[in-house]
């Protein structure tokens, strides 16, 4: 399509029915109460000139351009700050208004560079547009008076420039930073003529700015402008698509100039993000064209050989022949594959179909194994389905928000902005996390309770909260009696003295009274909503904790309406979708067990293949079986298991033991070092399909450009299946979604045509909910009644010892994403060029460690080295790092411990020792390679 310019109605929409009728320039319009005259005018088709107003921000009333006349009122009020009144008659164009507006514009233009023809915003400048709109024909004041034309440009940010000479001090950037993003990094410094936008008195890069791009988007001039636009020029066409980073799944306009992508602009109609973005989605797309990207298939006999570029037919036949050969020698179950949460639903679906129907086994798993598999287990046991309960908008109706084991401002920043907006408006906040995440105390937000628990004690804390709810009579008996089952057994369990806050205080480290207060607040504070992340799931009791949170939500009646719920914040863009699509070895698409004869029969009829009724291997089981010898070949779609999975030494041993490793990816990642076939994948800019975000929202991913590799990933998979003798052919990805819909009851109403029409839908989308289901379990749980499940606290076997006295926990940072394969190949490295170890000053001091020192991090399974950063956001005895950089190899030290129900690795608890690095020594990984030199003793 041509360049999409979304309408800007000047001020935000107001909720409620349209009840107030008025006339604007003689045209009747009816709008909700509280709507501004400016918006009412825009809705009636009349654009009032404006500069400081935009509909993503509350009205400000500073530019004095949107003046109107209203019958019966004196003066010329600003239409942006004047609310409508029944019967109001408004005039937006009169000789008086024309003169006033021209006078205002004269003042603006007298202090603005007249370089429109060479300005980067030429054609996309509201100041330019408004000059035309008000009929400006002269500037009586001349251009030689006092002005700001010599103000310097701040180019410190890698993605945008701040050219202060073009600033009209409308404050849109300042307000966007506060109202939309919630960071408050910008301010107006000085007064009167000396007023200017300031990033806290420093340059942008040194400031609190998080580079979300909200200020750039809000700027009406070229003051804040993307560097790509400055370099390449204004884009000329748009493609609406979906971000490929975190599980928020933001909608973007990919704006191109010819075939070249110029910028990504958040899409106002995107259901997940509603026009907002973060530094990754907005700016960090350069990896798609990075020179290290591999575009040609490659094969090799052994992993010590050089890669041989080959054509697609050769690579596909090589792969198919090797897979069949291994099966002929070692059995049908000797091969398997891993789907990726970074690929589309359609791409995931065909991989699991290839494995089940062409490989003939259920050895399929997905990277969700190592993140949210406990969510799948826990929510299915309690609620009946493996998904979060709410849409993102729901948080605007929450009264008490409980964030557990998640760091939304870094991991899910666009959702965090929604959450912070609600918190600034008065919702209460409970944070349960060993680390003092930014949300605990940030501008205009302070958590009522931060339960800074010891890593590994989540279950004890949530049980203690439930104990308080039960024993203090705070259970919502009406909800429980009507909607739930097995309450009595659970109540008997949770009321036991060992679950009281006082009993668990010693090992959780959380004062009992703090737990009691938090529990009371959650139970009695109105709509209570739980948001959680991998700090819940990546524990040996991850599934137990998910059920514990579900129990607490049910006991307090916080399920089944706006503002409440239990909500996993998914790590990758399509974690939800990859799970929905049947990526787990025990479940077909739609979370139906492979042993169900009726369900399996439906798939067998559609696929024309006999399917196995027994579960297959999960990722860790694949590694164990590879080492043991019964598993011989692995197809890896878009996941870097050699970096992201725990106990890397064991992973490398497994990969080395395999006869065939097929990697389908953008880059020669760490896993590719063990591969025999490399199948180049497509970036999200080339994909055609759908992603499903954390709120079950199915969004279209539209191709911005043709596949640089010459093939879509689903085509590659289908051709391998065909080469193995299984007929699989699609001419278009919409056919794959049609097949998914035909086989999966919760997707039966989904089609590309519907997504194109509605923008997105949230599953279940079927005959009962043809436009989707924003909030689940409203009239009843998916499983009928919500089930209470006793959740005993079983401590991890990973304990701090004299040799390993500290506990390591891991996480992510705003500017980087997962193993960094994408973000490390963008300018985002300016913020995080290496992984560091956060350590409490006390722990550092006793070890003689200073801020910035190189230290060695050692666990019972391995060692690595990295730089120490002293931070009191960690409690004494706990250290923290990220896993974005392979050179650091954080997973060299993580262990084989995993969640009891799902085998999700226990990334969050590893007993370690930290010491100053002295003599370097190579670290053996078991694969013959070495990691960064580190002292292991």
């Amino acid at each position, binding site marked *: 399509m041509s360049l999409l310019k979304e309408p800007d109605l000047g001020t935000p929409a107001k909720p409620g029915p349209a009840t107030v009728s008025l006339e604007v320039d003689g045209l009747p319009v009816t709008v909700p109460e509280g709507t501004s005259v400016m918006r009412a005018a825009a809705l009636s088709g009349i654009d009032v000139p404006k500069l400081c107003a935009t509909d993503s921000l509350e009205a400000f009333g500073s530019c004095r351009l949107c003046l109107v006349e209203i019958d019966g009122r004196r003066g010329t009020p600003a239409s942006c700050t004047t609310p409508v009144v029944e019967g109001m008659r408004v005039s937006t164009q009169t000789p008086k208004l024309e003169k006033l507006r021209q006078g205002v514009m004269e003042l603006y233009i007298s202090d603005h560079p007249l370089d429109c023809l060479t300005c980067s915003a030429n054609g996309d400048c509201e100041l330019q547009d408004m000059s035309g709109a008000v009929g400006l024909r002269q500037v009586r004041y001349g251009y030689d008076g006092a002005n700001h034309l010599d103000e310097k440009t701040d180019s410190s940010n890698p993605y945008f420039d701040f050219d202060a000479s073009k600033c009209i001090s409308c404050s849109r950037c300042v307000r966007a930073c506060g109202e939309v993003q919630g960071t408050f990094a910008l301010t107006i410094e000085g007064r009167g003529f000396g007023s200017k936008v300031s990033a806290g008195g420093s340059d942008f890069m040194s400031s609190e700015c998080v580079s979300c791009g909200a200020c750039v988007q809000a700027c009406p001039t070229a003051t804040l402008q993307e560097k790509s636009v400055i370099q390449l020029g204004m884009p000329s066409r748009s493609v609406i698509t979906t971000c490929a980073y975190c599980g928020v799944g933001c909608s973007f306009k990919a704006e191109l100039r010819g075939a070249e992508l110029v910028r990504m602009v958040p899409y106002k109609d995107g259901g997940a993000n509603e026009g907002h973005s973060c530094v990754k989605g907005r700016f960090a797309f350069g990896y798609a064209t990075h020179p290290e990207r591999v575009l040609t298939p490659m094969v090799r006999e052994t992993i010590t050989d050089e890669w041989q570029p080959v054509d697609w037919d050769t690579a596909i036949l090589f792969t198919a022949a090797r897979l069949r050969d291994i099966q002929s020698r070692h059995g049908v179950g000797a091969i398997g594959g891993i789907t990726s949460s970074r690929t589309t639903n359609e791409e995931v679906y065909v991989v699991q179909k290839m494995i089940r129907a062409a490989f003939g086994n259920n050895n399929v798993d997905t990277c969700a194994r190592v993140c949210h598999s406990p969510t799948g287990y826990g929510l299915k046991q309690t609620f009946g389905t493996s998904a979060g309960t709410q849409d993102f908008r729901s948080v605007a109706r929450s009264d008490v928000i409980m964030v557990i084991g998640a760091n939304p401002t870094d991991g899910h920043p666009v959702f965090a902005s929604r959450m912070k907006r609600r918190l600034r408006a008065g919702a209460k906040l409970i944070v349960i996390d060993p680390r003092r995440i930014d949300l605990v105390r940030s501008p205009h937000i302070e958590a009522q309770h931060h339960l800074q628990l010891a890593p590994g004690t989540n279950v004890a804390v949530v049980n203690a909260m439930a104990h308080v709810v039960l024993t203090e009579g705070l259970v919502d008996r009406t909800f429980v009696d009507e909607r739930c089952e097995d309450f009595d057994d659970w109540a008997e369990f949770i009321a036991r003295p060992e679950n009281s806050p006082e009993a668990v205080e010693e090992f959780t480290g959380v004062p009992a009274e703090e737990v009691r207060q938090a529990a009371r607040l959650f139970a009695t504070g109105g709509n209570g909503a739980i948001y959680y992340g991998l700090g819940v799931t990546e524990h040996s009791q991850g599934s137990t904790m998910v059920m514990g949170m579900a129990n607490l939500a049910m006991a307090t009646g916080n399920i089944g309406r706006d503002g409440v719920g239990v909500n996993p914040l998914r790590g990758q863009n399509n974690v939800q979708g990859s799970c929905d699509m049947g990526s787990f070895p025990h479940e077909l698409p739609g979370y139906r067990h492979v042993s169900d004869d009726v369900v399996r029969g439906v798939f067998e009829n559609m696929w024309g293949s006999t399917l196995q009724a027994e579960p297959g291997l999960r990722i860790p*089981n694949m590694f164990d079986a590879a080492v043991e010898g019964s598993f011989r070949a692995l197809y890896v779609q878009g996941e870097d298991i050699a970096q992201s999975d725990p106990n890397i030494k064991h992973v490398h041993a497994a990969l080395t033991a395999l006869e065939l490793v097929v990697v389908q990816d953008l880059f020669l990642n760490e896993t590719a070092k063990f591969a025999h076939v490399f199948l180049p994948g497509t970036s999200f800019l080339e994909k055609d399909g759908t992603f499903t975000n954390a709120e079950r929202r199915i969004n279209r991913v539209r191709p911005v450009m043709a596949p640089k590799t010459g093939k879509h990933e689903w085509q590659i998979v289908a051709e391998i299946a065909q080469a193995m003798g299984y007929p699989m052919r699609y001419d278009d990805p919409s056919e794959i979604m049609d097949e998914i819909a035909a086989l999966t009851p919760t997707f039966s109403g989904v089609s590309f045509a519907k997504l194109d029409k509605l923008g997105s839908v949230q599953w279940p989308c079927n005959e009962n909910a043809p436009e989707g289901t924003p909030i689940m379990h409203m009239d009843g749980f998916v499983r009928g009644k919500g089930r209470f499940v006793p959740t005993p606290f079983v401590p991890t076997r990973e304990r701090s010892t004299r040799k390993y006295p500290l506990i390591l926990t891991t996480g992510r940072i705003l500017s980087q994403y997962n193993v960094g394969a994408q973000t490390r190949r963008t300018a985002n490295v300016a913020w995080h060029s290496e992984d560091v170890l956060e350590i409490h000053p006390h722990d550092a001091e006793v070890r003689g460690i200073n801020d910035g020192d190189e230290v060695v991090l050692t666990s019972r399974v391995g060692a690595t080295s990295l730089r120490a950063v002293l931070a009191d956001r960690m409690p004494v005895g706990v250290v923290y790092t990220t896993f974005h950089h392979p050179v650091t190899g954080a997973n060299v030290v993580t262990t084989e411990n995993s969640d009891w129900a799902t085998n999700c690795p226990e990334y969050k608890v590893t007993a370690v020792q930290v010491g100053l690095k002295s003599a370097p020594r190579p670290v053996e990984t078991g694969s013959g390679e070495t990691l960064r030199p580190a002292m292991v003793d």
Partner: protein
Amino acid sequence: MSPPVRMINDIAAQFQHQAPATAAAAIAEHVRTFWDPRMRAELMRRVESEPQLLDPLALAAARLLRA
């Protein structure tokens, strides 16, 4: 400790609050639902060769799996 033994002991630890027969049945059902047959077979071999490494509930569950 071999992976199947470690894993079933981890599962058994979660069911200690239940009556032994109920717990053993739940553990066995969990293994049936989620484990690949070769893992179950390996578990059975371990039950024969090193039963002392199994939690009593895990051992009871393994017997149910064999039945």
